[in-house]
């Protein structure tokens, strides 16, 4: 290996570039300093910015646990280079609720018993919001397809489907959805 650079908290290789940049997350500006350019958005959120709500179950884009919204599109933050997200609007689970309470999807997850270990939960909440934003009344197959990129190992998905149904019913104003 070649002589390392004298920086702290960064990988060390002549070929490496460390950069400073700012990310726009949940409506706020988050400066990032002396970061290795190879860091994923997921890593920067979790390890540099204190936003660990996006989870790291596979870091390969297969499990959806790291789901965030990038310029309006649901993405796996493990597959996005953080430095490439400069200039984009990033929305994470931490900023999901405007008032600090729970969104209807989060509340429905609790009401339906859709949470067990919880590692997949934040990603699923992001995915379900994204689905319902575009498909307010999904068919069974539509909802299965929409969240098929989110792996859950605990629940078998049954209560997650129930949570989705609860939100759909409650949003439609049907009395059946009243708790």
């Amino acid at each position: 290996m070649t002589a390392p650079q004298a920086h702290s908290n960064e990988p060390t290789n002549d070929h490496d570039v460390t950069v400073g940049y700012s990310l726009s997350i949940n409506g706020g500006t988050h400066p990032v300093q002396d970061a290795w350019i190879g860091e994923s958005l997921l890593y920067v959120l979790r390890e540099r910015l204190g936003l660990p709500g996006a989870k790291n179950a596979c870091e390969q884009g297969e499990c959806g646990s790291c789901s965030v919204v990038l310029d309006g599109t649901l993405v796996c933050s493990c597959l996005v280079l953080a430095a490439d997200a400069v200039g984009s609007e990033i929305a994470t689970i931490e900023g999901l609720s405007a008032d600090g309470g729970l969104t209807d999807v989060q509340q429905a997850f609790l009401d339906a018993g859709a949470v067990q270990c919880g590692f997949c939960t934040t990603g699923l909440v992001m995915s379900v919001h994204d689905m319902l934003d575009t498909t307010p009344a999904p068919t069974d197959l539509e909802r299965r397809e929409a969240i098929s990129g989110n792996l859950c190992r605990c629940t078998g998905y049954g209560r997650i489907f129930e949570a989705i149904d609860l939100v759909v019913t409650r949003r439609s104003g049907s009395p059946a959805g009243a708790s």
Partner: protein
Amino acid sequence: MSTTETIATGTDTTTGTETTTGTETTTGTETTTGTETTPADSSERTRGPRIGENAPRPDGVPKVNGEFAFGNDMWIEGMLFGRTLRSPHPYARIISIDISKALAMHGVHAVITADDVPGQKLYGLEHKDQPVFASEVVRFHGEPIAAVAADHPETARRACRAIEVEYDVHAPIVDAELSITAPPIHPDGNIFRHMFIRHGHPDSPESEGVVAVEGDYEIGMQDQAFLGPECALGIPLEDGGIELYVSTQWIHADREQTAACLGLDPEQVRMTMAGVGGAFGGREDISLQIHTALLTLHTGRPVKLQYSREESFFGHVHRHPAKMWYRHSARADGTLAKIEARLVFDGGAYASTSSAVLSNASCFAHGPYNVEHALIEGYSVRTNNPSCGAMRGFGAVQTCFAHEAQMDKLAAALGIDSIDLRLKNALKTGDRNITGQLLSGVVPVAELIERCVAHPLPAMGEVGEMMGRPGGAGRTADAHHIKRGFGFAIGWKNLMFSEGFDDYSTARVRIDEGQNGPVVTVHCACAEVGQGFVTLAQQIARTVLGLDEILLHPADTQVGSAGSTSASRQTWMSGGAVQQACEAVRTQIFASLAATHGVDPETLAIQDDHIVSVDGTFSIPVEDAVANKTFEATEVNRHVQTVRLDADGQGDAHVSFAFAAHRAVVDVDEELGLVRVIDITTTQDVGKLLNPRQALGQIEGGIAQGVGLAVMEEIIVTNGKVRNASFTDYLIPTTLDMPTVTIAALIEEPEPGAPFGAKGIGEPPTIASTAAVAAAIRNAIGRDITRVPVRPQDICL
């Protein structure tokens, strides 16, 4: 749902504060203590859910809003990142390890090998045969060689690559059958356990029936695939000890093994449960605990070691692959005359729980049926494959797949309906199993079978639209080629640890005066891995004590062991410990009332939120009775003593048994070998439903893992090398793969000796669901299926 909201808000507020005000280490345990739900105004207090009610998870709000801290989320200023170097070979002699280049890299703070292990070099849950780091021989692909601590995970990764290891590569022993007689690949030999169960007189001519069927069955290696990869954070203490936060199933067993390898007293290793992202058996053994502790002590700095998904596949044990030969012989009327089986379980490189897994497989090898004679021979064997140990179902899954296939085969040979054959031989209370143990508890086998098959088939209609067909998003299946099949299976297993293991759990319960009334604190080291013990502990405390504010102390080693969150045991063991500790506190409260009010404590009882005398002359709210007083009790809950099986496999080895039946419907494209599981209908023996909603989640989730094993989940190991250590290549069921789950019946017949009569419910859903799906595929294609997971070539070639 005001209850939900009150508790949710309380949890939210407390957690938010703790997380953001930055206690140095943000751990899941601190977050779960967010159950300190003390509403600002005591008039807002609501009655919390008791036993039998749908209770909200106390960790629910932080889990949906991202504030719950899993092990992986832990962060502390100045911490280093750890990484493990693993062997690329399944079997090799290590000639040399050169760490100098890695150590010289800027940003690298430590590179450690076996030479840096100050205490015991070997560890293990039951048998200490696994090196902390391999130093002379590597015995499986992925065995740890060294570990690095660096200031950035990428630096740590590169440092691992810079470690130069020279190997003398040997041909691995990868066939368990051959390993039985092969030269030993470990000083302790190649056979973890060889056992027999002899029941009746299997050698006598009378043991032979008139019809016999035989079969060879095989099961692949399944992974627990919990979503949250392994993680630990070590913090050095000034006294030379260490504080270790870890996501695990059993912190006391972790501490014992870790301390021994560190050469420290167990008291110098303080362990606290970090938030656990699922477990399913895969966290029962040590993975990164010792490595993290060594790096921490070596550097004198906090070290966080977390596995990537790939490393997780290498870093924990898996479900045993098995090969099983079976022969069933029956009388003309269908009475089971004799069952013979030979089971060979591949335990991989190190012992883990291979001995106990084999014992379970053997004990339940005959299925939940009476049989006149049986001869079961079992081997669990060391090979150069990945180590195998605990996974949901623990040995019973493998033999269930075989015995249920055999029952269908036998019924066909006899010309009897396969359900009738099962009913004819079904075990019931008062029968004995093949180890000679009297089944004195609830054994509702016939009822489970009858109610499962009697349940109307769900409305499935014709073969669905393209995405709903076998192959799903591949959009390959032609509706005309699809055949629908139906299958049934029933399975059973033990609850709690077996064969004489000193199995216990400890709970400490304390009542203090809080800001707005009394607060009950429950301190138990039970690992909350998602199953919902935290919910249950609150329900139990409320039910026994009649108080609503229940705070859960972090699970740590400041209280006695709770045992492992496995074997479907925590509801019984830790639930029982909490119940007993609450009852001890209740006795103290009654004694206190006797002193202050002159009532006979023997006549008092707690009814809902009041303490009343049986004659109705005395009544006081529990809140008032405990006001401004402190009560505390610690109780240890032990189940009845079991014994190790003797040389003939006889003995009362188990505490209690649980049963579940499954009916599967599948669509199969025979030409392409593709399967879609359409529906699983189930019945289960639950004793008593303590939290119906939570039970439903356990059952559905357990079935998902059984379906996964049936049709898609397998760690592919070729000549000792793991080929698919990723979620790209190791497939677990997605929403598109998951069938509908229909619960036909949950049988609530209280189990004698069980707290509240409740049986553990976590494992039974995973046992027979795999076998039912395999049976349905056989039914669809009209040919035998002898291996799971069922692969396309097993169907279409």
